[in-house]
Protein backbone atom coordinates (compact mmCIF):
# COMPACT_ATOMS: atom_id res chain seq x y z
CA UNK A 1 0.00 0.00 0.00
CA UNK A 2 1.79 3.10 -1.23
CA UNK A 3 0.82 6.70 -0.68
CA UNK A 4 0.07 7.05 -4.37
CA UNK A 5 -2.23 4.05 -4.40
CA UNK A 6 -4.10 5.36 -1.39
CA UNK A 7 -4.41 8.78 -3.01
CA UNK A 8 -5.63 7.16 -6.21
CA UNK A 9 -8.25 5.11 -4.37
CA UNK A 10 -9.42 8.14 -2.39
CA UNK A 11 -9.75 10.34 -5.47
CA UNK A 12 -11.60 7.72 -7.47
CA UNK A 13 -13.92 7.11 -4.53
CA UNK A 14 -14.67 10.80 -4.28
CA UNK A 15 -15.74 10.88 -7.92
CA UNK A 16 -18.06 7.94 -7.28
CA UNK A 17 -19.33 9.94 -4.30
CA UNK A 18 -20.54 12.53 -6.83
CA UNK A 19 -22.78 9.91 -8.40
CA UNK A 20 -24.05 8.64 -5.06
CA UNK A 21 -24.71 12.19 -3.89
CA UNK A 22 -26.75 13.01 -6.97
CA UNK A 23 -28.91 9.92 -6.51
CA UNK A 24 -29.23 10.24 -2.74
CA UNK A 25 -29.88 14.00 -2.74
CA UNK A 26 -32.83 13.52 -5.11
CA UNK A 27 -34.15 10.63 -3.06
CA UNK A 28 -33.81 12.40 0.27
CA UNK A 29 -35.62 15.43 -1.15
CA UNK A 30 -38.52 13.33 -2.40
CA UNK A 31 -38.78 11.16 0.69
CA UNK A 32 -38.27 14.12 3.02
CA UNK A 33 -41.09 16.10 1.47
CA UNK A 34 -43.63 13.45 0.49
CA UNK A 35 -42.73 10.63 2.94
CA UNK A 36 -43.09 8.31 -0.04
CA UNK A 37 -40.39 5.67 0.28
CA UNK A 38 -39.68 5.51 -3.42
CA UNK A 39 -37.99 2.19 -4.18
CA UNK A 40 -38.40 2.90 -7.89
CA UNK A 41 -35.93 5.82 -7.63
CA UNK A 42 -33.21 3.33 -8.60
CA UNK A 43 -35.14 2.32 -11.69
CA UNK A 44 -35.47 5.96 -12.67
CA UNK A 45 -31.65 6.02 -12.57
CA UNK A 46 -31.50 2.76 -14.56
CA UNK A 47 -33.83 4.12 -17.25
CA UNK A 48 -31.74 7.29 -17.48
CA UNK A 49 -28.62 5.12 -17.91
CA UNK A 50 -30.21 3.10 -20.74
CA UNK A 51 -31.46 6.25 -22.42
CA UNK A 52 -28.01 7.89 -22.37
CA UNK A 53 -26.49 4.59 -23.51
CA UNK A 54 -28.84 4.14 -26.49
CA UNK A 55 -28.64 7.78 -27.49
CA UNK A 56 -24.86 7.45 -27.70
CA UNK A 57 -24.51 3.93 -29.10
CA UNK A 58 -27.29 4.09 -31.66
CA UNK A 59 -27.53 7.75 -32.54
CA UNK A 60 -24.11 9.09 -31.64
CA UNK A 61 -25.55 11.64 -29.24
CA UNK A 62 -22.92 12.98 -26.86
CA UNK A 63 -23.42 11.78 -23.27
CA UNK A 64 -23.37 15.45 -22.23
CA UNK A 65 -26.62 15.88 -24.13
CA UNK A 66 -27.73 12.37 -23.24
CA UNK A 67 -27.74 13.12 -19.53
CA UNK A 68 -29.73 16.31 -20.01
CA UNK A 69 -32.27 14.46 -22.15
CA UNK A 70 -32.42 11.72 -19.52
CA UNK A 71 -33.08 14.29 -16.83
CA UNK A 72 -35.98 15.78 -18.78
CA UNK A 73 -37.48 12.45 -19.86
CA UNK A 74 -37.23 10.84 -16.44
CA UNK A 75 -38.57 14.01 -14.86
CA UNK A 76 -41.65 13.80 -17.08
CA UNK A 77 -41.91 10.08 -16.45
CA UNK A 78 -41.88 10.61 -12.70
CA UNK A 79 -44.64 13.21 -13.03
CA UNK A 80 -46.68 10.59 -14.84
CA UNK A 81 -45.90 7.98 -12.18
CA UNK A 82 -46.91 10.41 -9.44
CA UNK A 83 -50.11 11.51 -11.08
CA UNK A 84 -51.62 8.34 -12.45
CA UNK A 85 -50.24 6.01 -9.84
CA UNK A 86 -48.90 7.29 -6.53
CA UNK A 87 -51.36 10.14 -5.94
CA UNK A 88 -54.19 7.65 -6.24
CA UNK A 89 -52.55 5.13 -3.96
CA UNK A 90 -51.85 7.85 -1.40
CA UNK A 91 -55.46 8.95 -1.48
CA UNK A 92 -56.71 5.53 -0.51
CA UNK A 93 -54.14 4.44 2.03
CA UNK A 94 -50.73 5.87 2.56
CA UNK A 95 -49.37 2.60 3.89
CA UNK A 96 -49.82 1.07 0.47
CA UNK A 97 -47.29 3.44 -1.10
CA UNK A 98 -44.42 1.25 0.06
CA UNK A 99 -45.84 -1.74 -1.79
CA UNK A 100 -46.74 0.46 -4.72
CA UNK A 101 -43.22 1.78 -5.28
CA UNK A 102 -41.67 -1.64 -4.64
CA UNK A 103 -44.05 -3.12 -7.19
CA UNK A 104 -43.21 -0.38 -9.65
CA UNK A 105 -39.52 -1.03 -9.13
CA UNK A 106 -39.91 -4.74 -9.87
CA UNK A 107 -42.11 -4.01 -12.86
CA UNK A 108 -39.61 -1.59 -14.39
CA UNK A 109 -36.70 -4.00 -13.85
CA UNK A 110 -38.63 -6.77 -15.59
CA UNK A 111 -39.66 -4.59 -18.49
CA UNK A 112 -36.02 -3.59 -18.91
CA UNK A 113 -34.96 -7.27 -18.89
CA UNK A 114 -37.56 -8.15 -21.52
CA UNK A 115 -36.69 -5.20 -23.74
CA UNK A 116 -32.94 -5.10 -23.37
CA UNK A 117 -31.88 -8.48 -21.86
CA UNK A 118 -30.18 -8.79 -18.49
CA UNK A 119 -26.68 -8.54 -20.00
CA UNK A 120 -24.48 -5.73 -18.78
CA UNK A 121 -23.39 -3.25 -21.46
CA UNK A 122 -20.58 -0.76 -21.65
CA UNK A 123 -21.22 2.57 -23.30
CA UNK A 124 -17.60 2.99 -24.49
CA UNK A 125 -17.98 6.71 -24.62
CA UNK A 126 -14.89 8.79 -25.24
CA UNK A 127 -13.50 10.64 -22.22
CA UNK A 128 -15.54 13.83 -22.05
CA UNK A 129 -12.83 15.68 -20.18
CA UNK A 130 -9.04 15.31 -20.12
CA UNK A 131 -7.72 13.13 -17.31
CA UNK A 132 -6.46 14.79 -14.17
CA UNK A 133 -2.78 14.10 -13.35
CA UNK A 134 -1.79 14.77 -9.77
CA UNK A 135 1.71 13.55 -8.99
CA UNK A 136 1.58 9.82 -9.57
CA UNK A 137 -2.20 9.76 -9.52
CA UNK A 138 -4.51 9.75 -12.53
CA UNK A 139 -8.24 10.43 -12.44
CA UNK A 140 -9.92 9.56 -15.76
CA UNK A 141 -11.84 12.37 -17.43
CA UNK A 142 -15.22 10.68 -17.16
CA UNK A 143 -14.76 10.27 -13.44
CA UNK A 144 -14.21 14.02 -13.28
CA UNK A 145 -17.45 14.50 -15.19
CA UNK A 146 -19.27 12.29 -12.70
CA UNK A 147 -17.87 14.20 -9.73
CA UNK A 148 -18.54 17.58 -11.34
CA UNK A 149 -22.07 16.92 -12.58
CA UNK A 150 -22.96 15.09 -9.37
CA UNK A 151 -21.71 18.07 -7.39
CA UNK A 152 -23.63 20.53 -9.56
CA UNK A 153 -26.85 18.54 -9.21
CA UNK A 154 -26.38 18.51 -5.50
CA UNK A 155 -25.85 22.29 -5.41
CA UNK A 156 -28.89 22.86 -7.62
CA UNK A 157 -31.13 20.82 -5.29
CA UNK A 158 -29.74 22.61 -2.29
CA UNK A 159 -30.37 25.98 -3.95
CA UNK A 160 -33.95 25.11 -4.87
CA UNK A 161 -34.72 23.99 -1.34
CA UNK A 162 -33.09 26.93 0.43
CA UNK A 163 -33.55 29.90 -1.82
CA UNK A 164 -36.72 29.56 -3.86
CA UNK A 165 -40.37 30.00 -3.06
CA UNK A 166 -41.04 26.41 -4.09
CA UNK A 167 -38.28 25.27 -1.78
CA UNK A 168 -40.02 26.99 1.12
CA UNK A 169 -43.29 25.35 0.16
CA UNK A 170 -41.62 21.96 -0.01
CA UNK A 171 -40.09 22.49 3.42
CA UNK A 172 -43.46 23.59 4.80
CA UNK A 173 -45.21 20.56 3.31
CA UNK A 174 -42.50 18.35 4.76
CA UNK A 175 -42.87 19.90 8.24
CA UNK A 176 -46.67 19.80 8.39
CA UNK A 177 -48.58 19.06 5.19
CA UNK A 178 -51.96 19.97 6.64
CA UNK A 179 -50.75 23.31 7.93
CA UNK A 180 -49.13 24.01 4.56
CA UNK A 181 -52.50 23.38 2.96
CA UNK A 182 -54.09 25.94 5.27
CA UNK A 183 -51.45 28.45 4.13
CA UNK A 184 -52.89 28.21 0.63
CA UNK A 185 -50.26 25.79 -0.63
CA UNK A 186 -51.48 23.16 -3.08
CA UNK A 187 -49.73 20.35 -1.25
CA UNK A 188 -50.53 17.76 -3.87
CA UNK A 189 -48.77 19.83 -6.52
CA UNK A 190 -45.83 20.43 -4.21
CA UNK A 191 -45.53 16.69 -3.59
CA UNK A 192 -45.59 16.15 -7.33
CA UNK A 193 -42.97 18.86 -7.82
CA UNK A 194 -40.63 17.29 -5.30
CA UNK A 195 -41.16 13.92 -6.94
CA UNK A 196 -40.32 15.39 -10.34
CA UNK A 197 -37.20 17.13 -9.03
CA UNK A 198 -36.06 13.80 -7.60
CA UNK A 199 -36.84 12.22 -10.99
CA UNK A 200 -34.79 14.79 -12.91
CA UNK A 201 -31.85 14.22 -10.59
CA UNK A 202 -32.24 10.46 -11.03
CA UNK A 203 -32.33 10.78 -14.83
CA UNK A 204 -29.16 12.89 -14.97
CA UNK A 205 -27.51 10.54 -12.50
CA UNK A 206 -28.43 7.71 -14.89
CA UNK A 207 -26.34 9.43 -17.52
CA UNK A 208 -23.45 9.44 -15.06
CA UNK A 209 -23.97 5.73 -14.41
CA UNK A 210 -23.61 5.03 -18.13
CA UNK A 211 -20.28 6.88 -18.09
CA UNK A 212 -18.54 4.86 -15.40
CA UNK A 213 -20.56 1.71 -14.66
CA UNK A 214 -22.07 -1.19 -16.56
CA UNK A 215 -25.55 -0.47 -17.81
CA UNK A 216 -27.96 -3.27 -16.96
CA UNK A 217 -31.55 -3.68 -15.69
CA UNK A 218 -30.66 -4.13 -12.02
CA UNK A 219 -28.07 -1.38 -11.80
CA UNK A 220 -30.65 0.81 -10.06
CA UNK A 221 -31.24 -1.76 -7.37
CA UNK A 222 -27.61 -1.64 -6.27
CA UNK A 223 -27.66 2.12 -6.30
CA UNK A 224 -30.94 2.71 -4.49
CA UNK A 225 -29.89 0.51 -1.59
CA UNK A 226 -26.75 2.61 -1.28
CA UNK A 227 -28.85 5.76 -1.55
CA UNK A 228 -31.05 4.60 1.31
CA UNK A 229 -27.96 3.89 3.37
CA UNK A 230 -26.69 7.38 2.56
CA UNK A 231 -29.86 9.21 3.45
CA UNK A 232 -30.05 7.26 6.68
CA UNK A 233 -26.50 8.39 7.38
CA UNK A 234 -27.22 11.98 6.44
CA UNK A 235 -30.64 12.22 8.06
CA UNK A 236 -33.94 12.05 6.19
CA UNK A 237 -34.56 15.12 4.07
CA UNK A 238 -31.11 16.53 4.85
CA UNK A 239 -29.51 17.34 1.49
CA UNK A 240 -26.05 18.38 2.77
CA UNK A 241 -26.17 15.25 4.92
CA UNK A 242 -26.62 13.25 1.73
CA UNK A 243 -23.38 14.69 0.30
CA UNK A 244 -21.38 13.77 3.36
CA UNK A 245 -23.06 10.38 3.59
CA UNK A 246 -22.20 9.77 -0.07
CA UNK A 247 -18.56 10.61 0.52
CA UNK A 248 -18.36 8.34 3.54
CA UNK A 249 -19.97 5.40 1.76
CA UNK A 250 -17.95 5.84 -1.45
CA UNK A 251 -14.68 6.06 0.51
CA UNK A 252 -15.54 3.05 2.63
CA UNK A 253 -16.35 1.03 -0.47
CA UNK A 254 -13.43 2.28 -2.52
CA UNK A 255 -10.84 1.66 0.16
CA UNK A 256 -12.24 -1.77 0.98
CA UNK A 257 -12.21 -2.92 -2.62
CA UNK A 258 -8.69 -1.59 -3.20
CA UNK A 259 -6.94 -2.70 -0.05
CA UNK A 260 -8.86 -5.66 1.36
CA UNK A 261 -8.14 -8.92 -0.48
CA UNK A 262 -11.21 -9.81 -2.56
CA UNK A 263 -12.67 -6.60 -1.16
CA UNK A 264 -14.29 -5.79 -4.50
CA UNK A 265 -17.13 -8.13 -3.72
CA UNK A 266 -17.86 -6.39 -0.41
CA UNK A 267 -19.07 -3.15 -1.97
CA UNK A 268 -22.67 -3.76 -1.30
CA UNK A 269 -22.07 -5.28 2.12
CA UNK A 270 -20.29 -2.13 3.23
CA UNK A 271 -23.43 -0.12 2.55
CA UNK A 272 -25.50 -2.44 4.68
CA UNK A 273 -22.92 -2.48 7.43
CA UNK A 274 -22.86 1.32 7.54
CA UNK A 275 -26.62 1.42 7.51
CA UNK A 276 -26.87 -0.94 10.46
CA UNK A 277 -24.16 0.87 12.42
CA UNK A 278 -25.82 4.22 11.94
CA UNK A 279 -29.27 2.91 12.80
CA UNK A 280 -27.96 1.44 16.04
CA UNK A 281 -25.73 4.33 17.09
CA UNK A 282 -27.33 7.45 15.57
CA UNK A 283 -30.94 6.62 14.73
CA UNK A 284 -31.51 10.17 13.44
CA UNK A 285 -28.50 10.10 11.14
CA UNK A 286 -25.11 11.64 11.77
CA UNK A 287 -26.46 15.18 11.70
CA UNK A 288 -30.06 14.37 12.51
CA UNK A 289 -31.34 16.96 14.85
CA UNK A 290 -34.32 15.78 16.80
CA UNK A 291 -37.20 17.02 14.70
CA UNK A 292 -39.47 19.45 16.55
CA UNK A 293 -43.07 18.49 16.38
Amino acid at each position, binding site marked *: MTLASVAQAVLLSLTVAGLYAAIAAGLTLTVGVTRIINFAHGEFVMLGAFLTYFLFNQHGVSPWIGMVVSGVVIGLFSALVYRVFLARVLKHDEHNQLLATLGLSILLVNIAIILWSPDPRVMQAPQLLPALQLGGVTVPGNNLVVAGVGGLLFLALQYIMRHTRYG*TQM*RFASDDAEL*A*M*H*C*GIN*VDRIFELSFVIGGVAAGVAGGLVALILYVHPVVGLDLVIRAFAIITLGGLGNIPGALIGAAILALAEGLTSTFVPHGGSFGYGIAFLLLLLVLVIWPNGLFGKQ*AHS
Partner: protein
Amino acid sequence: MNRFDVALAGAGYGALTIVPELSLSVSGGEVMVLLGSNGAGKTTSLRAVVGTVRTRNRSVRLDGEDLSPLSAWQLARRAIAFVPDGARCFANARVIDNLTGALEALKPKVMPAERKRLFDRVFDLFPILHERRRQLAGSMSGGQRQMLAISRALMIEPRVMILDEPSAGLAPKLVEEVFEALGRIKAASGCAILMAEQNVAAAMSIADRCLILSEGRVMLQGDIDDVRNDERLRVAYLGL
Protein backbone atom coordinates in the same frame (compact mmCIF):
# COMPACT_ATOMS: atom_id res chain seq x y z
CA MET B 1 -68.78 43.31 4.24
CA ASN B 2 -66.92 40.09 4.92
CA ARG B 3 -70.08 38.32 5.83
CA PHE B 4 -69.42 34.64 6.27
CA ASP B 5 -72.32 32.20 6.04
CA VAL B 6 -72.00 28.52 6.70
CA ALA B 7 -74.47 25.66 6.68
CA LEU B 8 -73.41 22.09 7.39
CA ALA B 9 -75.21 18.80 7.59
CA GLY B 10 -73.88 15.40 8.58
CA ALA B 11 -70.34 16.28 9.57
CA GLY B 12 -68.35 13.32 10.86
CA TYR B 13 -65.86 10.55 10.28
CA GLY B 14 -66.53 7.48 8.17
CA ALA B 15 -69.97 6.22 9.02
CA LEU B 16 -70.04 8.23 12.23
CA THR B 17 -71.94 11.52 12.23
CA ILE B 18 -70.80 13.91 14.93
CA VAL B 19 -72.51 17.18 14.04
CA PRO B 20 -75.85 16.50 12.34
CA GLU B 21 -76.69 20.10 11.57
CA LEU B 22 -75.18 23.50 12.06
CA SER B 23 -75.56 26.87 10.42
CA LEU B 24 -74.12 30.20 11.39
CA SER B 25 -73.24 33.63 10.06
CA VAL B 26 -70.49 35.99 11.11
CA SER B 27 -70.04 39.52 9.82
CA GLY B 28 -66.83 41.47 9.45
CA GLY B 29 -65.69 43.00 12.74
CA GLU B 30 -67.66 40.42 14.65
CA VAL B 31 -66.56 37.46 16.75
CA MET B 32 -68.65 34.33 16.96
CA VAL B 33 -67.53 31.75 19.45
CA LEU B 34 -68.37 28.05 19.47
CA LEU B 35 -68.60 26.96 23.07
CA GLY B 36 -68.87 23.46 24.40
CA SER B 37 -67.03 20.95 26.54
CA ASN B 38 -64.39 18.55 25.37
CA GLY B 39 -65.75 16.28 22.65
CA ALA B 40 -68.77 18.50 21.96
CA GLY B 41 -67.86 18.71 18.27
CA LYS B 42 -66.21 22.12 18.01
CA THR B 43 -63.15 20.94 16.11
CA THR B 44 -65.28 18.72 13.90
CA SER B 45 -67.51 21.67 13.04
CA LEU B 46 -64.64 24.03 12.22
CA ARG B 47 -62.90 21.41 10.12
CA ALA B 48 -66.12 20.70 8.31
CA VAL B 49 -66.34 24.41 7.54
CA VAL B 50 -62.93 24.40 5.87
CA GLY B 51 -63.64 21.06 4.24
CA THR B 52 -61.19 18.72 5.94
CA VAL B 53 -63.93 16.76 7.70
CA ARG B 54 -66.51 15.12 5.50
CA THR B 55 -70.05 16.46 5.39
CA ARG B 56 -73.21 15.30 3.68
CA ASN B 57 -74.11 18.85 2.78
CA ARG B 58 -72.01 21.94 3.06
CA SER B 59 -72.47 25.49 1.98
CA VAL B 60 -69.85 28.19 2.55
CA ARG B 61 -70.42 31.75 1.38
CA LEU B 62 -68.41 34.90 1.67
CA ASP B 63 -70.36 38.07 0.90
CA GLY B 64 -72.81 35.89 -0.94
CA GLU B 65 -70.23 34.23 -3.15
CA ASP B 66 -70.47 30.46 -3.05
CA LEU B 67 -67.13 29.00 -1.99
CA SER B 68 -68.42 25.51 -1.21
CA PRO B 69 -66.63 23.72 -4.08
CA LEU B 70 -63.20 25.04 -3.03
CA SER B 71 -60.78 22.83 -1.16
CA ALA B 72 -59.00 23.93 2.00
CA TRP B 73 -55.93 25.37 0.25
CA GLN B 74 -58.13 27.33 -2.12
CA LEU B 75 -60.10 28.79 0.78
CA ALA B 76 -56.84 30.17 2.17
CA ARG B 77 -56.24 31.78 -1.23
CA ARG B 78 -59.64 33.46 -0.87
CA ALA B 79 -58.49 35.01 2.42
CA ILE B 80 -60.22 32.52 4.69
CA ALA B 81 -57.56 31.67 7.26
CA PHE B 82 -57.77 28.58 9.44
CA VAL B 83 -55.66 28.26 12.59
CA PRO B 84 -55.91 24.64 13.75
CA ASP B 85 -55.73 23.62 17.39
CA GLY B 86 -52.45 22.85 19.09
CA ALA B 87 -50.57 26.05 18.17
CA ARG B 88 -49.11 24.35 15.14
CA CYS B 89 -46.16 25.88 13.34
CA PHE B 90 -43.58 24.92 10.76
CA ALA B 91 -41.33 23.74 13.52
CA ASN B 92 -38.12 23.42 11.53
CA ALA B 93 -38.39 26.89 10.03
CA ARG B 94 -37.48 30.12 11.79
CA VAL B 95 -40.22 32.43 13.03
CA ILE B 96 -39.49 34.92 10.26
CA ASP B 97 -39.57 32.15 7.63
CA ASN B 98 -42.93 30.92 8.91
CA LEU B 99 -44.31 34.40 8.28
CA THR B 100 -42.53 35.05 4.99
CA GLY B 101 -43.46 31.62 3.64
CA ALA B 102 -47.13 32.13 4.48
CA LEU B 103 -47.09 35.54 2.83
CA GLU B 104 -45.26 34.41 -0.31
CA ALA B 105 -47.36 31.28 -0.73
CA LEU B 106 -50.20 33.65 -1.59
CA LYS B 107 -48.39 36.70 -2.88
CA PRO B 108 -45.11 35.69 -4.48
CA LYS B 109 -44.36 39.19 -5.72
CA VAL B 110 -45.37 41.23 -2.72
CA MET B 111 -44.03 44.80 -2.70
CA PRO B 112 -41.50 45.72 0.00
CA ALA B 113 -43.77 48.41 1.45
CA GLU B 114 -46.66 45.98 1.67
CA ARG B 115 -44.40 43.37 3.22
CA LYS B 116 -43.20 45.85 5.81
CA ARG B 117 -46.73 46.88 6.68
CA LEU B 118 -47.76 43.25 7.28
CA PHE B 119 -44.70 42.45 9.35
CA ASP B 120 -45.05 45.65 11.37
CA ARG B 121 -48.62 44.75 12.15
CA VAL B 122 -47.84 41.30 13.59
CA PHE B 123 -44.73 42.47 15.40
CA ASP B 124 -46.76 45.29 16.88
CA LEU B 125 -49.37 42.80 18.09
CA PHE B 126 -46.78 40.34 19.37
CA PRO B 127 -43.43 42.05 20.08
CA ILE B 128 -42.00 38.78 21.41
CA LEU B 129 -42.11 37.37 17.87
CA HIS B 130 -39.85 40.15 16.69
CA GLU B 131 -37.42 39.30 19.45
CA ARG B 132 -37.54 35.62 18.51
CA ARG B 133 -37.69 36.09 14.76
CA ARG B 134 -34.49 34.15 14.07
CA GLN B 135 -35.38 31.28 16.36
CA LEU B 136 -36.76 27.96 15.11
CA ALA B 137 -40.52 28.00 15.60
CA GLY B 138 -40.45 24.54 17.16
CA SER B 139 -38.18 25.70 19.95
CA MET B 140 -40.64 28.27 21.28
CA SER B 141 -43.18 27.93 24.09
CA GLY B 142 -46.79 27.03 23.39
CA GLY B 143 -47.93 30.59 23.91
CA GLN B 144 -45.36 31.98 21.51
CA ARG B 145 -46.26 29.35 18.93
CA GLN B 146 -49.94 30.30 19.23
CA MET B 147 -48.97 33.92 18.63
CA LEU B 148 -47.00 32.83 15.60
CA ALA B 149 -49.92 30.74 14.34
CA ILE B 150 -52.25 33.75 14.57
CA SER B 151 -49.64 35.99 12.95
CA ARG B 152 -49.19 33.52 10.11
CA ALA B 153 -52.91 33.73 9.45
CA LEU B 154 -52.73 37.54 9.51
CA MET B 155 -50.08 37.54 6.80
CA ILE B 156 -52.71 36.57 4.25
CA GLU B 157 -54.86 39.56 5.30
CA PRO B 158 -57.80 37.35 6.13
CA ARG B 159 -61.37 38.36 5.50
CA VAL B 160 -62.40 35.46 7.72
CA MET B 161 -60.33 33.98 10.51
CA ILE B 162 -61.25 30.58 11.94
CA LEU B 163 -59.46 29.65 15.14
CA ASP B 164 -59.64 26.37 17.03
CA GLU B 165 -59.15 26.88 20.77
CA PRO B 166 -56.43 29.50 20.72
CA SER B 167 -56.28 29.43 24.52
CA ALA B 168 -55.67 25.68 24.86
CA GLY B 169 -52.59 24.82 26.88
CA LEU B 170 -51.67 28.46 27.55
CA ALA B 171 -50.90 30.00 30.94
CA PRO B 172 -53.55 32.53 32.06
CA LYS B 173 -51.22 35.47 31.46
CA LEU B 174 -50.69 34.38 27.85
CA VAL B 175 -54.40 33.68 27.30
CA GLU B 176 -54.99 37.28 28.27
CA GLU B 177 -52.32 38.51 25.89
CA VAL B 178 -53.60 36.42 22.97
CA PHE B 179 -57.20 37.50 23.48
CA GLU B 180 -56.21 41.10 23.86
CA ALA B 181 -54.52 40.80 20.46
CA LEU B 182 -57.57 39.07 18.96
CA GLY B 183 -59.66 41.95 20.26
CA ARG B 184 -57.39 44.41 18.47
CA ILE B 185 -57.59 42.34 15.27
CA LYS B 186 -61.37 42.35 15.53
CA ALA B 187 -61.49 46.11 16.01
CA ALA B 188 -58.96 47.04 13.35
CA SER B 189 -59.06 44.50 10.55
CA GLY B 190 -62.71 44.21 9.70
CA CYS B 191 -62.39 40.47 9.39
CA ALA B 192 -65.02 38.03 10.55
CA ILE B 193 -63.77 35.80 13.35
CA LEU B 194 -65.14 32.35 14.08
CA MET B 195 -63.55 30.61 17.00
CA ALA B 196 -63.96 27.52 19.14
CA GLU B 197 -63.22 27.88 22.82
CA GLN B 198 -63.56 26.09 26.12
CA ASN B 199 -62.28 29.02 28.09
CA VAL B 200 -65.64 30.72 28.47
CA ALA B 201 -64.38 33.77 30.33
CA ALA B 202 -61.70 34.51 27.75
CA ALA B 203 -64.11 33.92 24.88
CA MET B 204 -66.75 36.18 26.44
CA SER B 205 -64.22 38.98 26.66
CA ILE B 206 -64.24 39.47 22.90
CA ALA B 207 -67.23 37.56 21.51
CA ASP B 208 -70.33 39.21 20.09
CA ARG B 209 -72.27 36.06 19.55
CA CYS B 210 -72.03 32.49 20.60
CA LEU B 211 -73.13 29.07 19.58
CA ILE B 212 -73.26 26.38 22.22
CA LEU B 213 -72.60 22.80 21.21
CA SER B 214 -73.34 19.74 23.28
CA GLU B 215 -72.75 16.25 21.93
CA GLY B 216 -72.70 17.64 18.42
CA ARG B 217 -76.03 19.43 18.71
CA VAL B 218 -76.55 23.16 18.68
CA MET B 219 -78.17 23.98 22.02
CA LEU B 220 -78.31 27.70 21.57
CA GLN B 221 -77.22 30.40 19.21
CA GLY B 222 -77.47 34.06 20.03
CA ASP B 223 -76.02 37.26 21.34
CA ILE B 224 -73.37 36.85 23.97
CA ASP B 225 -75.24 39.36 26.18
CA ASP B 226 -78.34 37.16 26.19
CA VAL B 227 -76.28 34.34 27.63
CA ARG B 228 -74.41 36.62 29.98
CA ASN B 229 -77.64 38.06 31.38
CA ASP B 230 -79.56 34.83 31.63
CA GLU B 231 -78.46 32.94 34.71
CA ARG B 232 -80.39 29.82 33.72
CA LEU B 233 -78.54 29.60 30.40
CA ARG B 234 -75.20 30.26 32.06
CA VAL B 235 -75.70 27.51 34.57
CA ALA B 236 -77.17 25.05 32.13
CA TYR B 237 -74.58 25.29 29.40
CA LEU B 238 -71.53 27.07 30.62
CA GLY B 239 -71.28 26.02 34.24
CA LEU B 240 -70.88 29.62 35.32
